[in-house]
């Protein structure tokens, strides 16, 4: 059940040494299993054996964060280019969902969602990805659609070899891209330092043997974690992460990105008290600074050059503890707070005339402090009852005079902060008996309105071709959620089914205002964020992992979401039914993995945003690995063909009728020491 409910996907190298694992096996099989992800699981980064589940999610050693996310049954990706895809959880996206990095709040600096926080993180920075859809989704912040928490990998102490690591490099023919990853760990008895570095460079890829322009990118990513053991049971940990992307094409947008930079840093203290009532106590302070610059200089038909830089700075802290109240109750308490300042500018340069300037994000400060409580009550050996909730005090304010006066043109009064109390509450019960398990969760959640929705100023949306104006008077979106899970698990087979239904109120969307004149040359019109009384998102996910034959394992998941608005019209950007399957054969030094992704057509489209239907497609990938030992170290050769039959296709969540990559041959080499 945890499979669909609260998944921790092991990343990094090899990860777990189990043969046939489900991700949840990192935690003990007690009924209060959900908190297993919050424990510090020390993973020896040594490949031993084969981990089919890991390879299902992270099919190559140089997979990107988005590649991994796309394999999660509940996650789809909005694609504007060949870079920085935006996660969607069960039809929810952007500020409807929570995205955190080890509990760190990060907000992209691009008004057009070209840099979701996940784009600044590499799998080699990570230990795991935690997805929460109902229970526990509000742990890291208020949201109505679920949360993704990317857990940073940590330095390991007291390792067998003082210095260990991994280097991997791969090359893809179709896009002439190179991907290189270096991971190093220095583990002394009381001190450890872990380094990961990633360099990626990609040219334009081919589809139908034609080059698809503006699909290139380059990026460099570094992360360092240093960990110091203060005493037998307490640790001090410092994370520094730098991610620089440049020359990034966004084929589906009218502009590219010249530079996307993130600096993320955190200092945390964690103690496992000797007093057994406290499982752990952790506190962290963090900050991150993001600068994002769009670039239209390479586009041939730009009517007028413009600069569109954006800044997002976030500082925050949290404290978290888990207390065993008695033999039946485990209470988790988390208090957190952050403050985020965003500014985005647009300067246009007409020929022979004065430059034109405006703030597209008018210096908006969002500050939130919150309290999250979770209690797991072990009713008996079969039933667990879970209750959790979050209360957030959230304030949004325009901090500059120019930002305030700018909104006067819409007669908005924004001198005072917009203050909201956001409430999230969720209750559920889990039943487990023998190989069978099931759960039901019911929740109510509210989310903060985004800067775009409140204060966005003529933000061009390339999806429907409208300029969008914020509306500081909108209500906060809220949702009633219900989720049913059932599963059956034996040593060889793991089947899970999740059904969900979200009834959303104050559903926020842009409404066309014909009386407003467009800012963007060629735009279809101007939309102002407004709300419809309700919308609905429902669907299911099925997961299957089974050993077909000795050495042969099938892992598969299916997903389906249906979105409807007030009048039963389809919501935009809803993924159709999709089936992702992988069959993996592994024997001694050799492994072979065949993958299939099959998506049905999406004909339920939103006419309000001029959405187009998308035909069905099916894809095949084939990957092989040969690994052998060189002294104590391991050398691994990888080769693969992606999109084996050179299918010309696009996914429904891809913007702008841009085809996905055609057949691609990739080769890789990795060395583990």
């Amino acid at each position, binding site marked *: 059940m945890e499979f669909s409910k609260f998944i921790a996907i092991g990343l990094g190298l090899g990860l777990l040494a189990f043969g046939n694992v489900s991700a949840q096996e990192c935690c003990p099989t007690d009924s209060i299993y959900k908190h297993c992800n919050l424990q510090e699981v020390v993973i020896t980064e040594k490949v031993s054996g084969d981990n089919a589940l890991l390879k299902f999610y992270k099919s190559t050693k140089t997979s990107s964060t988005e590649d991994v996310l796309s394999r999660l049954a509940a996650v789809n990706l909005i694609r504007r280019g060949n870079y920085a895809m935006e996660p969607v959880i069960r039809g929810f996206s952007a500020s409807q969902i929570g995205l955190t990095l080890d509990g760190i709040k990060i907000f992209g600096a691009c008004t057009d969602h070209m840099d979701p926080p996940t784009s600044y993180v590499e799998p080699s920075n990570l230990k795991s990805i935690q997805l929460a859809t109902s229970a526990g989704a509000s742990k890291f912040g208020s949201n109505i659609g679920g949360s993704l928490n990317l857990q940073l990998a940590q330095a390991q102490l007291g390792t067998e070899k003082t210095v260990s690591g991994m280097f991997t490099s791969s090359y893809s023919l179709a896009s002439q891209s190179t991907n290189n990853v270096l991971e190093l760990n220095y583990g002394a008895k009381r001190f450890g330092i872990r380094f990961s570095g990633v360099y990626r460079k990609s040219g334009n890829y081919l589809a139908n043997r034609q080059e698809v322009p503006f699909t290139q990118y380059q990026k460099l990513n570094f992360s360092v974690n240093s960990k110091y053991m203060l005493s037998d049971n307490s640790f001090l940990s410092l994370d520094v992460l730098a991610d620089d992307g440049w020359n990034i094409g966004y084929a589906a947008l009218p502009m590219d990105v010249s530079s996307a930079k993130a600096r993320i840093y955190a200092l945390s203290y964690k103690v496992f008290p000797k007093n057994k009532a406290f499982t752990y106590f952790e506190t962290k302070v963090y900050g991150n600074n993001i600068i994002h610059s769009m670039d239209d200089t390479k586009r041939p038909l730009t009517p*007028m050059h413009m600069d569109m830089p954006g800044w997002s700075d976030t500082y925050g802290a949290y404290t978290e503890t888990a207390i065993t109240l008695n033999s039946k109750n485990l209470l988790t308490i988390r208090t957190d707070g952050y403050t985020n300042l965003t500014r985005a500018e*647009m300067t*246009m340069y*007409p020929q022979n*005339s*004065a*430059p*034109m*300037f*405006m*703030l597209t994000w008018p210096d908006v400060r969002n500050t939130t402090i919150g309290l999250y409580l979770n209690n797991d009550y072990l009713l008996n050996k079969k039933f667990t009852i879970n209750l959790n909730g979050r209360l957030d005090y959230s304030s949004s304010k325009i901090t500059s005079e*120019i930002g*305030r*006066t*700018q*909104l*006067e*043109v*819409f*007669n908005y009064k924004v001198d005072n902060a917009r203050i909201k109390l956001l409430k999230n509450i969720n209750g559920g019960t889990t039943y487990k008996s023998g190989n069978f398990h099931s759960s039901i969760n019911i929740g109510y959640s509210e989310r903060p309105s985004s800067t775009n929705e409140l204060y966005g*100023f*003529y933000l061009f949306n390339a999806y429907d071709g409208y300029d969008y104006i914020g509306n500081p008077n909108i209500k906060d979106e809220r949702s009633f959620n219900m989720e049913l899970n059932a599963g059956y698990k034996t040593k060889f087979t793991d089947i899970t089914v999740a059904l969900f239904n979200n009834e959303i109120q104050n559903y926020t969307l842009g409404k066309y205002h014909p*009386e*407003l*004149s*467009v*800012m963007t*040359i060629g735009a279809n019109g101007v939309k102002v964020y407004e709300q419809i009384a309700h919308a609905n998102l429902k669907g299911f996910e099925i997961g299957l992992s089974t050993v077909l034959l000795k050495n042969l394992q099938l892992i598969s998941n299916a997903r389906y979401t249906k979105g409807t608005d007030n009048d039963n019209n389809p919501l935009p950007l809803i993924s159709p039914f999709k089936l992702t399957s992988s069959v993996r054969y592994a024997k001694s030094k050799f492994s072979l993995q065949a993958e299939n992704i099959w998506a049905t057509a999406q004909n339920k489209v939103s006419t309000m945003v001029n959405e187009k239907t998308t035909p069905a497609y099916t894809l095949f990938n084939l990957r092989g690995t040969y690994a052998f030992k060189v002294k104590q170290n391991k050398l691994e050769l990888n080769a693969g063909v992606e999109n084996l039959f050179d299918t010309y296709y696009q996914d429904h969540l891809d913007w702008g009728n841009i085809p996905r990559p055609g057949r691609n041959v990739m080769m890789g080499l990795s060395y583990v020491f």
Partner: protein
Amino acid sequence: MKNLTKYLVIAIIPFLFTSCEKSEESPNPTINKIKVGEAMITDANTKLQIWADADLNTGYNKLYLIALDATTNEPKSDATFAIKPMMTMTMTGGMTMTHSSPFEQADAAAKKNNLTPAAAVFTMPTSDSGFWKMEVTLNNNKKAIIPIKVEESKQSRLIMASTADKTNYIVALLPNPAYKIGANDFELQISRKIDANTYTPVNDFTVEMTPEMPDMGHGSPNNVNPTFVANGHYKGKVNFTMSGYWKVNLKIKDASGTTIGEDTFFKITF
């Protein structure tokens, strides 16, 4: 405790000072203003000065008049003024002719800090062939002629418009030194030309305003059309969604609904 009180008192003293200063009349009434003209009235031992918010430009200019004792340089608080702007033009052939321009007479009731406000709408700049002077009458008996220099305004601030029956109107945009992205005050002064020396404020027009950004081809929402307030003044709000070059189009109609002028607009760049 005693010390605390002492420090509190010390801390408060500067604030007392600053508030005192504010309530008194500023020692220099012409601070932040520019002297644009000066003349002596010797038989009254008086220096007459004209001040303005900025260098004089074609269009509407707010003026401030002050009379000083020539010996002590002290302001004469009981002085009254009457003004009349005059332009002398040298025509080809050496003939000269003079005309006036719309103006707002010095208003003694509005005197502040010994400065008496007035205004003039200069219809052309000072040039080789024409110069402006201001006739100022002090206390209804002493007259001075003060030469002044008028520059061509960098922003368009003046529209000369006429109707089919050859009635001429002068539409002046009151200067706004600090246009901003957002809602901006937009004030017009409209005068009717009776003859070269006589202009009267027009109080019964309607004005429709549509700003546009010619480089982009877009406008802005929620503008407030200028409506009549007093003395030929019309006040409204113009909304600029971004900085840069704006063209504020005006449709000015007389009481009968006839449009005054063709293609009337002001260009504003900020």
